[in-house]
């Protein structure tokens, strides 16, 4: 029986307030193998860790058990402490006395009894712990950024500046993302294009950055340091090496269709660049609309193209490449408010979403920069902004606050006043949320200097009324019902995850929350990490976010990626599967269920009645194994076992917990 030390953390009053530490320590003294017990106010503190290290040396401990917070919180802290005292770091077991006990139970007797049971199980497992050595893995010194919006561009630039090559995969024909669709940015009213375009160009010209636009990630395999990624480069039907970006092709193209970039408010050609400042400035032929692809005739663009760059036969290319780290920055969508029948969206041309309205301010936009009603082309007099359309709405929309709407509405109201000085804005809001540097001042400016009427309340219904819109709402502060004859209604529709976010997450191998926003590894302390090592997230794919936050998060993700790429070797998973070849019958069911292809057949020689026999057994590649343990269950004889979670250890835990 190894010499076991048990250490209990009070975690201030977090554990000690509900769990009777003294009783727990007394009981733990009698667990099999336990030769030393101690408790301390904060075991994770330096003094607390020293307590463990001293005891390991003085008491010649061979196994350590700590009763603390969740192992997902401090397991690595204590492993390090144990290692510093000269023990193998995997000779440590954590009993979760806080998240799984003291915080979820109030009765002290019950919580104490449960703490003892959890601790007993941890001690029973610890007795069977064996020293483990994590394999050292190579790092491919190249990063992949998925998504070419402002977050993706920023992350790519930061990684490239640190000296590592980066590929940026963007689904659309140009990088730029949502920010490229904006006219101005709050709270400074900078022109979005003026600050974004230089960054786009910088990314395109950076020797370490390789832009893969009009491309999608199809498959991600492997693991941190060695992700093997398949990228589909969709056929543009243009030879990018020849194209000069002169634009003759789309001038001459006879087919028009709705522009995605203009939110369907304007037309584009079947051969097109999404917007004038597109990077790369290489058109794409939209095969669903191109006459030649649909009906086999036309080819005008081909004839007109001066450098002969049109190349109809071009096929999709699959690029297979290995990356050490991945940054996911796939952005967001705006909710389609058509479900909200009371706002008449889709029933009247002058009811718009805010992203649609934004395009009205842009000189290259559908109205050439004029704010006019789509119905009659006249400038609006009264514009009603409705906040929280689908946000803070657990009945029909999203339970969360979309965070950016209060600010972009204030911005649009200001821009409106500047474009149409006689226009009057009304904003129906539930709360105005302006947390951010300069935000409150900006919103107050809208109300005080630009005369925007803020009405605390919601709109019951928008009635299309001849050429105008009657908005019926309430100002809850005065208790007055309000009726406004509006010329335009702008809906601050919720920011939502991309429609295919869940699917994309599955391909990449990261999980998402109930709204399909990608999950960070820890809401406070690991905001850009995911649960998959080596994959980081940035921007609005994690939650609704404004530009400053997206850029900050992108730089944070870039630092994490760079930190990883800078490593000579990575430490792999130590808790890997291992085969007992003498028991293995070679059925290879383990190989069939292994998600990493870490198990393969190997021939071994055996002596049988004086003769040499060869037979097949399974073998684990520890560098590939991630330690899920699925193989151990497929193995009927238990000949493949998971180190750190062995069959014997789990049985010991079960036995101990049932005592």
């Amino acid at each position, binding site marked *: 029986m190894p010499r076991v030390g048990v250490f209990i953390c009070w975690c201030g009053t977090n554990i000690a307030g509900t769990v009777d530490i003294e009783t727990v320590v007394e009981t733990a003294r009698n667990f099999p193998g336990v030769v030393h017990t101690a408790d301390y106010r904060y075991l994770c503190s330096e003094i607390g860790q020293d307590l463990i290290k001293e005891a390991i040396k003085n008491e010649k401990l061979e196994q350590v058990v700590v009763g603390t917070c969740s192992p997902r919180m401090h397991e690595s802290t204590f492993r390090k402490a144990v290692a510093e005292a000269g023990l193998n770091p995997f000779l440590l077991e954590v009993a979760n006395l806080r998240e799984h006990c003291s915080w979820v139970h109030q009765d002290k007797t019950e919580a104490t009894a449960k703490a003892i049971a959890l601790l007993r199980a941890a001690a029973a497992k610890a007795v069977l712990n064996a020293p483990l050595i994590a394999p050292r893995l190579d790092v491919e010194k190249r990063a992949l950024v998925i998504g070419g919006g402002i977050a993706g561009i920023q992350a790519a630039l930061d990684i490239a500046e640190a000296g590592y090559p980066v590929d940026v995969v963007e689904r659309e024909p140009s990088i730029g993302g949502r920010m490229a669709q904006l006219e101005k940015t709050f709270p400074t009213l900078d022109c979005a294009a003026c600050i974004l375009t230089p960054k786009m160009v910088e990314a395109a010209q950076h020797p370490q950055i390789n832009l893969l636009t009009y491309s999608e990630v199809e498959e991600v395999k492997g693991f941190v340091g060695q992700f093997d990624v398949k990228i589909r480069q969709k056929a543009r039907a243009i030879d990018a090496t020849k194209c000069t970006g002169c634009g003759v092709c789309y001038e001459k193209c006879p087919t028009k269709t709705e522009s995605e970039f203009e939110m369907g408010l304007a037309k584009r050609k079947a051969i097109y660049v999404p917007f004038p400042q597109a990077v790369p400035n290489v058109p794409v032929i939209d095969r669903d609309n191109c006459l030649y692809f649909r009906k086999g005739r036309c080819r005008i663009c081909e004839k007109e193209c001066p450098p002969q760059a049109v190349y109809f036969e071009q096929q999709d290319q699959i690029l297979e490449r290995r990356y050490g780290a991945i940054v996911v920055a796939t952005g967001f969508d705006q909710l389609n408010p058509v479900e909200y029948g009371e706002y008449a969206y889709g029933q009247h041309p002058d009811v718009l979403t805010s992203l649609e309205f934004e395009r009205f301010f842009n000189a290259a936009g559908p109205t050439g920069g004029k704010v006019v009603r789509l119905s009659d082309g006249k400038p609006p007099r009264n514009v009603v902004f409705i906040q929280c359309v689908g946000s803070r709405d657990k009945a029909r929309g999203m339970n969360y606050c979309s965070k950016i709407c209060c600010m972009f509405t204030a911005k649009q109201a200001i821009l409106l006043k500047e474009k149409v000085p006689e226009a009057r804005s009304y904003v129906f809001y539930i709360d105005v949320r302006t947390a951010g540097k300069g935000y409150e001042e900006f919103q107050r400016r809208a109300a005080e200097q630009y005369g925007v009427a803020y009405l605390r309340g919601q709109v019951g219904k928008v009635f299309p009324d001849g050429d105008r819109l009657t908005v019926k709402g309430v100002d809850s502060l005065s208790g007055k019902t309000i009726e406004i004859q509006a010329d335009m209604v702008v809906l601050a529709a919720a920011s939502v995850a991309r429609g295919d976010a869940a699917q994309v997450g599955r391909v990449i191998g990261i999980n998402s929350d109930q709204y399909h926003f990608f999950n960070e590894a820890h809401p406070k302390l690991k905001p850009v990490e995911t649960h998959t090592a080596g994959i980081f997230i940035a921007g609005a794919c994690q939650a609704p976010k404004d530009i400053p936050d997206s850029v900050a998060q992108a730089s944070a993700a870039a630092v994490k990626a760079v930190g990883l790429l800078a490593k000579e070797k990575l430490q792999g998973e130590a808790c890997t599967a291992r085969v007992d070849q003498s*028991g293995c*019958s070679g059925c290879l069911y383990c190989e069939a269920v292994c998600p990493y292809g870490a198990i393969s057949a190997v021939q071994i020689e055996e002596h049988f009645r004086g003769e040499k026999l060869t037979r097949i057994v399974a073998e684990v590649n520890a560098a590939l194994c991630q330690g899920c343990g699925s193989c151990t269950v497929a193995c009927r*004889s*238990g000949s493949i076992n998971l180190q750190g979670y*062995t069959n014997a250890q789990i049985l010991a835990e079960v036995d101990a917990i049932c005592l």
Partner: protein
Amino acid sequence: MAENNVDYSAKIRGVVAQDLLSGRIDLLLGWEKGHYWWQSRPLFARDQADLERLAWDSFCAVNLSRYLVDELKENKKVGVLLKGCDARALNRLVQDNMVPRERVIAYGLPCPGMLNYAALLEAAAGRKPDGIAEENGQVTVRGGGVELTVPRDRVLLDKCRHCLYPNPVHCDQLLLTPVGERQAPERFSAVQERESLSSDARFAYWEKQLERCLRCYACRQACPYCSCRECFVEQEQPRWLSKASQPSENFMFHLIRAYHGAGRCIDCGECQRACPVGIPLQELNRKLIKDINELYGHYEAGLDPGQEPPLLTYRPDDPAAFSEK
């Protein structure tokens, strides 16, 4: 069959003798008569003299495929006589990499179903039978100077009653003419009957059945899917269960024995036939076959070694036997 079995045995002997004497195979696995007339036991034939004892009659129930695992360690190439169930058992072993198929010559024997001595005793109505004769689906039991004739179906082994594949699904050489399709009764009827009981009644039923278990592991030894080099029941580290024949341990053994066959059991019934205390083991196996078929699509183990067993694969839209809310 019994009437002509001498001829059949001779015919079989003729074919395999050629292969054995020419050295095409080093060993032939067949059957020979045992101590009693109603027993046929495995024959390990290496020469002509051994072959003389080869017998093919209505008592060759023992599945010979299982013996390949050990015999192939000492012999380069082994010939084996396979009934329908034995052929599927060979597929099971090939799929599990327990038997290299290329070192086996499989001689197929279409099987009319094997007879159950207990049922013959019953048919003899109290007299001790000393032999049988078979003709046209009838079995005549001789004993004490009296002859009683019963339909063959009535004296079949349980495992043969429900047999769906009496003809070998594959073999290198078919030795006899295939038998016709048989009307097999619904094999899940016993399972369904048990399912209709309450939890407590089911538990009482199994408690009664399993308390007889001696933990002799004959079921395991006979089974073509129990091919592990070391069975979990005999492991010391970890000790999954103790050696004692004790109710909860017996439950554990039998549930896991059956579970290890989930998606793998070929439903040959050897476990139940081998059980010296008559535990209806096949019911547990069939419960799994039935459920897995219902949940994850029809699958018949042992038909095609290339087809992946259902528990080694999945579909993203699989149903579950628990709430997925």
